[in-house]
């Protein structure tokens, strides 16, 4: 196994949203790395901060969102640059977006401009970053469309988004993010709006991009099955924190955070016996505003201890690739150590 180079390192990222006068911490101390040529999956329930994380990386947070602290170190061909230090819509940051980092959003219909031809929308990205003639750009787009399995690309680049099916639209989105050949691709729930058969097509395509073209990918999803199939690394988020991080094997075969465990067990799998009960998590996701101290999951955790709510929870390295943010693990580790 060759040495893994990280292409992106997120360090202690903290983001808050203001709502009038109040401000709520939505991301707390988020740190993770994305390795070259690997796919990192971020999983977690709705509202846990997955999208905010990637939007912070791209500096595309809405106006009321603010990065309070932390670094986003991007490896730009050997140069490590901190994206957070760049001006939001400045030249430097814009040079990153689209060219160095591509992004695919959840809803392919809403994410494409309905009044522009799809070809134009792809070309726009290319021509923003490379001074090349239109014709050449067009040829490149056609080429990419072919590669992404869009039939009849010469004709279809003139079409408008609404003339495409959901799956095809998502391919166009991927084309937009890929046209400048970025090394890092961020896909925020790219298949949630799609049917399973189409989801399978899109995921195969992304896997192929990653493997054949050596791209690094951040995939956001809440489908554990999908994670198992395509991801190399997994970060599990809960309430703005990464509670568990590791390789896909670490997480699926040895889930160590109670949250991860229940998440895995709460999904029915094919062939599950009808009479077997699904694992559930008590209660509902609390409001991030109400957070005071300790583990956010403590209130719903079956193994919660007193200390869970009173002290800061450290990240604990189980192996050098597997980290968990849970006191249970700390204790059992201590036990092992003893």
């Amino acid at each position, binding site marked *: 196994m060759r040495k893994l180079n990280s292409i992106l390192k997120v360090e202690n990222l903290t983001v808050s949203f203001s709502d009038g006068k109040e401000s709520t911490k939505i991301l707390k101390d988020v740190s993770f790395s994305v390795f070259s040529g690997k796919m990192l999956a971020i999983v977690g329930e709705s509202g846990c901060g997955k999208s905010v994380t990637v939007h912070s990386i*791209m500096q*595309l947070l809405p106006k009321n969102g603010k990065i309070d602290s932390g670094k986003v170190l991007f490896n730009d061909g050997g140069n490590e640059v901190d994206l957070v230090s760049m001006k939001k*819509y400045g030249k430097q*940051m*814009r*040079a*990153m*977006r*689209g*060219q160095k980092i*591509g*992004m695919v*959003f959840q*809803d392919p219909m*809403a*994410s*494409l*401009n*309905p*009044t*522009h*031809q799809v070809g134009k*929308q792809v070309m*726009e*990205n290319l021509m*923003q*970053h490379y001074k090349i003639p239109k014709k050449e750009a067009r040829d490149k787009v056609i080429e990419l469309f072919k590669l992404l399995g869009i039939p009849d690309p010469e004709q279809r680049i003139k079409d*408008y988004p*609404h*003339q495409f099916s959901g799956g095809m639209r998502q391919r166009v*989105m991927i084309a*937009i*993010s890929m046209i400048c050949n970025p090394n890092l691709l961020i896909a925020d729930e790219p298949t949630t709006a799609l049917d399973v058969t189409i989801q399978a097509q899109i995921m195969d395509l992304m896997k192929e991009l990653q493997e054949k073209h050596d791209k690094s990918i951040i995939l956001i999803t809440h489908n554990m099955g999908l994670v198992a199939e395509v991801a190399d690394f997994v970060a599990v988020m809960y309430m703005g924190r990464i509670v568990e991080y590791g390789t896909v094997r670490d997480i699926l075969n040895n889930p160590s955070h109670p949250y991860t465990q229940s998440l895995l067990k709460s999904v029915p799998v094919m062939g599950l016996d009808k009479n077997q009960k699904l694992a559930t998590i008590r209660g509902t996701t609390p409001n991030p505003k109400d957070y005071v101290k300790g583990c956010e999951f403590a209130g719903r955790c079956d193994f919660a201890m007193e200390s869970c709510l009173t002290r800061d929870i450290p990240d604990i390295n189980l192996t050098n690739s597997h980290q968990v943010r849970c006191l249970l693990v700390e204790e059992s580790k201590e036990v092992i150590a003893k």
Partner: protein
Amino acid sequence: MLKYIIRKSLVTIPMLFVISIIVFFAIQLSPIDPISYSASPDVAVDSENLEALREHLGLNDPLYIQYYHWIIAVFKGDFGYSIITGQPIAKILALKLPATIELSLLALVISTIIGVAMGLVSAIKPNSMSDYFSRNVAVLGISIPEFFFGIIIIQIFAIQLGWLPISGRIGVNDVTFWDRLPNLILPSFTLAIGMLAVLLRYTRNSMLDVLSKDYIKTARSKGIPEWKVFIFHAFRNSLGSILVILAFRLPMLIGGSVIIEMVFMWPGIGNAIISAVSSSDYPVIMITTMMLASAILVASFLVDVLSAFLDPRIRLE
């Protein structure tokens, strides 16, 4: 696209037809006598020949026959005569419309440029000082009655300061547009105020709406400069609704100029309408109504075509 345009334009014909029927019969219901103009009550007139004229003009025919004659004549471009002045209505229109169009167009240009620009600035920086200012200007603009506004600026700019003429319009043929401009400024500005306010609000709202769309995020994720995001994506996409409101307002500019023309004594179609209405000059009322209705229909047709042109979802349906 062509098929779409043809289809849309075909819909307007029955509408016009229905409107012509309503206009005709509504006015027939009122007690207005179309030939009483020959007998002003201020002048002693012997009314014996009026009956002959009534017969001659077919006014004793059943209504549907009268309607038939009227609509056929209108189709042929014969709009009949004003019963007050005896002038052919076609000529009245030919005479008055240019003045109104001149006024309305200038108002349109002023309000569009200022309104859209202010709306854009507002939307780009919502809740900023300039946004706050623009929004209040907009509310003010729709709240002050235009005649009051007109009177105030006449008082200020014409009477107190004497910078601009109070009223009237110098002839079309003798001087260039630039010579008429001093007379145009006050009325067109007054006329523009309301429209400006509406456009400002509309532009702001639709820009804000579009800016919250996901595809704006996509555009930003391409690394294109913010101004391009605003212009090529946000403005381009809100243009549709802005143009819609613009086109819908267009005939209202003509209709809405009635009061302005009155205040500024502008010899346009609005003034003609007012005097037609206050003197019950019903052939003129009918034709001007039809004209304004057609203008509105044309405008809504334009709206359809424009939105189709701007929005491929409609165009390619």
